[in-house]
């Protein structure tokens, strides 16, 4: 890979010692994140993703393994050197973690004052940052007077104050509603593009990854189950863990009666980047003269393109199935045949 690597994790294992013996949070994690990318780490609750991101600035000390950030081995630094290194790694949190007794601008000045910048300089920089996150008019507001999205914007400004190379986002949108989530994600993307900051996004929501990440690692039961480009994993999930994340809500459906008749064939059709004006399924049905039954659909428009997937039940007639496959091939639509256990 010709891109410069900014974070490397080698053989990372983290065990927590508890009353009932050790709990393994992470085991044998190897990871490499390139400078300037938005890297997603996705997993269900308890998969260890928060522990992993906290190992990237050593808020959590790995039991085994090494963590490199920007060429420095964090795990080998002294306390003082580590504090210095942390200034180059911004972090935002699910609960924002702002100083509740300080105004927005004081919160943004805080990391600058910690690193010894004088107050006037700090305020000047804070005003620039308020501008970047679009909250110049809220400079003297206290966190309690701000909405969730506004608080996260202030937290982002605060994390950017020391001009970090890396921004860690620990479930940064999980406490926000979908609209606010989208606006925070687009802000993160803008920051990534404008300032060239590498962003690591921890989330349990596939849509967050789809929306901004270039690469993703899927964390399952303390291990990296799968890692690669987002569209690749989206098209061809290799592991059960990846599929579980692609089909959220599987648990609820498990209790509902099975879809369709048994032994009927199903197709997963992936939409990644076609225009929303293209009625793919309807065209397919018309062109092939065979009806399909839509069992699952999850599509959204991201930046003017349709992204998502559908699971359709195929007709019984063999020739109709081959017509459908031929049609999808001709239209360059990605699909794969799936079995009942996918759903």
């Amino acid at each position, binding site marked *: 890979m010709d891109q410069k690597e900014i974070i490397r994790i080698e053989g990372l294992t983290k065990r927590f010692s508890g009353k009932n013996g050790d709990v393994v949070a992470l085991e044998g994690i190897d990871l490499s994140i390139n400078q300037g990318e938005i890297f997603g780490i996705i997993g269900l609750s308890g998969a260890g993703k928060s522990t992993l991101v906290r190992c990237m600035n050593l808020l959590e000390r790995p039991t085994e393994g090494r963590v490199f950030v920007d060429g420095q081995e964090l795990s080998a630094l002294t306390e003082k050197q580590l504090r210095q290194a942390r200034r180059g*790694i911004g972090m935002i949190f699910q609960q924002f*973690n702002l100083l509740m*007794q*300080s105004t927005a601008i004081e919160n943004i000045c805080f990391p600058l004052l910690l*690193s010894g910048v004088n107050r006037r300089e700090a305020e000047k920089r804070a005003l620039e940052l308020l501008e970047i996150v679009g909250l110049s008019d809220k400079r003297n507001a206290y966190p309690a*007077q701000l909405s969730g999205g506004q608080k996260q914007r202030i937290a982002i400004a605060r994390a950017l104050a*020391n001009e970090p190379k890396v921004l860690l986002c620990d479930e940064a949108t999980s406490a926000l509603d979908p609209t606010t989530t989208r606006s925070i994600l687009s802000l993160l993307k803008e920051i990534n593009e404008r300032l060239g900051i590498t962003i690591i996004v921890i989330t349990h929501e596939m849509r967050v990854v789809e929306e901004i990440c270039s690469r993703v690692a899927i964390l399952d039961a303390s291990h990296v189950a799968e890692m690669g480009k987002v569209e690749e994993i989206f098209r061809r999930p290799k592991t059960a863990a990846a599929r579980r994340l692609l089909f959220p809500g599987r648990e609820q459906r498990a209790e509902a009666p099975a879809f369709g008749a048994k032994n009927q064939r199903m197709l997963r059709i992936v939409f990644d980047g076609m225009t929303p004006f293209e009625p793919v399924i309807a065209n397919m049905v018309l062109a092939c003269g065979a009806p399909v039954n839509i069992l699952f659909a999850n599509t959204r428009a991201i930046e003017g393109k349709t992204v998502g997937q559908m699971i359709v039940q195929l007709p019984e007639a063999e020739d109709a199935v081959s017509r459908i496959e031929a049609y999808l091939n001709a239209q360059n639509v990605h699909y794969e045949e799936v079995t009942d256990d996918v759903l």
Partner: protein
Amino acid sequence: MFSKEMLNLFLEGTLETFYMVVMSTLLAYLIGLPLGVLLVVSGEDGIRPMPVLNRTLGVVINLLRSAPFLILLVALTPVTRAIVGTSLGSTATIVPLVIGSAPFIARMVESSIKEVDGGVIEAAQSMGASPMQIVLRVMLPEAKPSLTVGAAIAVTTILGYSAMAGFVGGGGLGTIAVNYGVYRYQTDVMLVTLALLVAIVQVFQEVGMHIAARIDKRRR
């Protein structure tokens, strides 16, 4: 109703009580505040765990706190004499007041600081804050409203202690209540000192709560 001398006595007693309480509170915080911070910082989940120090400190504080103040007052007489030169009067009373209330203040400071959201401390750590910076720039400012409520409680407790000191010649309103009210059966004097004490408690408590509410930015 009361002679001019008596009225002067009340005024003097009130001022002496104020002097004792304010001085003792300030000095007790000088000791109790750092100790309270140390209790949190050195605790198991603290930012700089020091188990031995933490446990030792905890035991010493509990020992001092379990001694009834009146006993402490008498037991500390030699110490008071060594420091102030006498064990009588309001200045002398400050010594046992400080020693008696500092451990109590340390515990109150501890509980106030423990209320500070761990996430905020973690955020500061992620920005490279040193333990000292976390104490001075995160813990104490974030705990300010709760610390203020604690201070109001501390002041009123110290006021109660100071009145007790009246039994051993401690000066202030307590001494007046004991000398006139108890020994000479002048119930009216006793009632006036009581009323004055109640009024002082009210003032400290109300002012403290008012300030705490005003500086707390978590609401609105």
